[in-house]
């Protein structure tokens, strides 16, 4: 992760719009970002769950890998990540992770195969803001010379999330209405080329829209004019993803956690589990067979007090069995919820645990995630 104190903070192309909209700006991953707008996090969260929220995620890293054909590019990327990319169809998107040699996670990423036949051999990769410099260096170091790495620092990224996202965006780009979850297409909005994927980080249906930085403000303002759309800050982005049970790099995922421990082994397809050929395969194969020592779980405190990141998790006997990695208040759940790692022996659903909040053990239970049902569009 980039140390935010080590460099001057950067701004996304929408910074002036955030300020004009009355956002409270905070430093995040080296950027000055809106944490909330005047209505506040609870309202923004609920709005995204019932209408459509517009998020500026332009701080995230975007790049393209370009090779002779799809298989060449896919095989090259597969040496660094455990997802099956070779079998991605045109316009299909997958979630994956850059792994260390011992199976830890350098970053979690989205990989999309271009839908355009003339772009056969092109993969688009979106990475976390705080990791992007390291990720791009990692790609540059490990990709063979036959694969071109094109960074896209001039592309902005918007997310439009919520049950009304599809009807709103279809007013400007009719093709998006029926595209499946985790697919992507290239189209134009008012003549401006955009790359749209049906994905996001809220647990709701929605899209991410990649567009040139010079054009993003006009598109953001156009979307905000729609009555269903309000701007949403990082605060609600975090509470939405927590309720949706989604990992945040630097919290649930880091250099020590494996995808199996993180309970995201669904992102390692069968062919890769069997054949390997990615960093950390030994550990991941062993953990898939024997089970990991610890596991990411959902935790529901019984009372009203949130348990924050770093809170110790104890068993009945008072022994430490794990730690909370993200925790707070779930506005839709209308109560506290958390994620954390516990020893696998204590990871079964329904296990009673204690959270040590300000020195006092608070009763809680290991629960299924998501805390609020995901509502992705499955067609």
């Amino acid at each position, binding site marked *: 992760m980039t140390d935010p104190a080590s460099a001057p903070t950067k701004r996304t192309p929408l910074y002036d719009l955030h300020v004009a909209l009355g956002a409270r700006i905070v430093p995040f991953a080296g950027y000055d970002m809106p944490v*909330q707008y005047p209505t506040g996090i609870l*309202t923004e969260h609920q709005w995204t769950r019932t209408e459509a929220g517009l998020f500026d995620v332009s701080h995230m890293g975007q790049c393209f890998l370009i090779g002779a054909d799809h298989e060449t590019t896919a095989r090259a990327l597969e040496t660094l990540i455990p997802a099956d990319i070779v079998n991605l169809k045109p316009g299909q998107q997958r979630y994956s992770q850059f792994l260390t040699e011992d199976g830890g996670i350098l970053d979690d990423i989205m990989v999309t195969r271009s839908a355009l036949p003339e772009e056969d051999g092109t993969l688009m990769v979106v990475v976390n803001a705080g990791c992007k410099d390291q990720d791009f260096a990692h790609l540059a170091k490990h990709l063979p010379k036959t694969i071109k790495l094109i960074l896209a620092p001039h592309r902005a990224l918007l997310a439009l999330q919520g049950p009304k996202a599809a009807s709103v965006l279809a007013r400007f780009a009719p093709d998006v209405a029926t595209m499946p979850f985790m697919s992507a297409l290239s189209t134009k909005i008012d003549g401006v080329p955009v790359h749209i994927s049906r994905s996001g980080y809220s647990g709701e249906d929605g899209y991410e829209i990649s567009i040139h930085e010079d054009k993003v403000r006009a598109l953001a303002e156009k979307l905000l004019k729609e009555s269903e759309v309000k701007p949403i800050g990082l605060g609600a982005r975090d509470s939405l993803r927590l309720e949706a049970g989604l990992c945040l790099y630097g919290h649930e995922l880091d250099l020590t956690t494996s995808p199996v421990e993180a309970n995201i082994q669904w992102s390692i397809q069968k062919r890769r589990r069997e054949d390997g050929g990615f960093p950390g395969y030994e550990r991941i194969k062993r953990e898939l067979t024997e089970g990991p020592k610890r596991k990411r779980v959902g935790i529901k405190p019984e009372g009203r007090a949130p348990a924050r990141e770093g809170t110790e998790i104890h068993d009945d006997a008072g022994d430490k069995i794990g730690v909370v990695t993200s925790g707070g208040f779930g506005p839709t759940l209308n109560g506290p919820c958390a994620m954390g790692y516990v020893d696998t022996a204590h990871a079964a659903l329904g296990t009673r645990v204690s959270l040590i909040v300000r020195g006092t053990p608070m009763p809680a239970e290991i629960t299924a995630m998501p805390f609020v049902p995901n509502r992705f569009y499955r067609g």
Partner: protein
Amino acid sequence: MGNTHYTKDHEYVRVEGDVATFGITDYAQSQLGDVVFVEVPKVGAHLKQGAEAAVVESVKAASEVYAPVSGEVIESNAALEGTPATVNEDPEGKGWFGKIKLANKSELDALMSEADYKTYLSTL
């Protein structure tokens, strides 16, 4: 001198006789954002000026609330546990945290008057 006093940490204390009602200021609630949980002081607890007295949590973070004065807690606003948003809506009214029986009235001298607190806010 008015009967409401303020700390640099944005607690207020309103004194009536030897009883001090305290909570967080409107500025504090606006900085915290939506309050989702409050742990009010326990009745009977002996608080020391400047020591932790209560906890207020927004969606994003937990913040400690410090006792503006020393003394025994004689009443706490348990209603906040069910309706924490009262702290946002009426921080210096219905959103009070606790009532303290003043142990040492001279501690109030260290606090700011309303006018001084307004001046202090203008420097932040």
